[in-house]
C-alpha cells in the first residue's frame, strides 16, 4: 500500500516481511530487478539512475492503486532506487498480496510493465567506453501496450 524511492539497496527480506505483515493473503508474488553486467552486448560496470522525485512518487502511487483495483489486491508495495548503482545491485522491487495466485502474479507483471515506461527514471550506463543514456526499448512499450489493449476491450 505504499511506495518508496530510495538511494539505499533494497532489503528484499525486510520488504517481504513488511508486505506479508503477519496476516498474509493466500497468494504473495514479488519481483526484483537487478543491475545487469552487460547491455546489448557491451559490458556495464555501473548505473546512474536519474529521477524526477515528485512525479515518480505520484506515478508509482497511482500505479499501485490501479493495480490494487484491477487485481483486487489486499496489499502492494513498490520500491525503486535512484542514484549510483553497482552491477548486481537491486534496482526495483514490487510485491502484491491477493486471494488468488493469478491476481498476485499479474499485478507484479502489470506494475513492472507499466513503471518501465511510465515512471520518470532514466538510466545512464557506465562502462569501459564511458557513459551513455540507455535508450527506451520498443519491447517495453509493447509489453505496456498489452495492458492498455486489455483495458480497451
Amino acid at each position: 500500500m505504499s511506495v518508496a524511492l530510495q538511494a539505499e539497496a533494497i532489503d528484499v527480506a525486510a520488504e517481504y516481511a513488511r508486505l506479508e505483515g503477519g496476516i498474509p493473503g493466500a497468494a504473495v508474488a514479488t519481483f526484483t530487478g537487478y543491475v545487469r553486467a552487460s547491455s546489448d552486448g557491451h559490458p556495464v560496470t555501473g548505473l546512474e539512475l536519474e529521477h524526477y522525485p515528485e512525479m515518480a512518487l505520484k506515478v508509482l502511487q497511482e500505479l499501485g492503486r490501479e493495480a490494487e483495483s484491477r487485481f483486487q489486491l489486499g496489499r502492494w508495495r513498490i520500491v525503486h532506487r535512484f542514484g549510483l548503482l553497482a552491477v548486481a545491485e537491486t534496482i526495483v522491487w514490487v510485491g502484491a498480496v491477493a486471494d488468488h495466485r493469478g491476481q498476485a502474479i499479474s499485478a507484479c507483471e502489470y506494475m513492472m510493465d507499466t513503471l518501465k515506461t511510465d515512471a520518470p527514471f532514466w538510466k545512464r550506463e557506465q562502462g569501459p567506453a564511458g557513459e551513455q543514456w540507455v535508450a527506451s526499448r520498443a519491447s517495453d512499450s509493447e509489453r505496456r501496450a498489452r495492458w492498455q489493449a486489455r483495458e480497451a476491450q
Partner: protein
Amino acid sequence: MSVKIKLFSSLREVLGESEIEFDLGTLDSAPGEADVATIKAALSKCGADWREALNQPNLVHALNHKVVYTQAIVSEGDELAFFPPMTGG
C-alpha cells in the same frame, strides 16, 4: 506569470539546465491560452541546441507531474517538464 520548467536526462545534460523559470507574459498568447506547444516554440528560439532538444519526436511533456500532449494549457504556477522516454525499472 511564471511557470517552472524542468529538464531531465539527456535534455538536462545537453542544455546544461535542470530548472528554469519561464514568464508566460512574454508570449503573444492571451492569458489561459498558452499551451505546451507555444512554450516549446518560445524556448526553441533560445538556440539550436534548444530547438533540437525540444523537437525530438519522442520528447515527453509532463505538466504538474502528469504526461500530457502539446495541446495542454499551461497556467501560472504550473510545473512543466521535458524529458526523453523513461527507462526505469
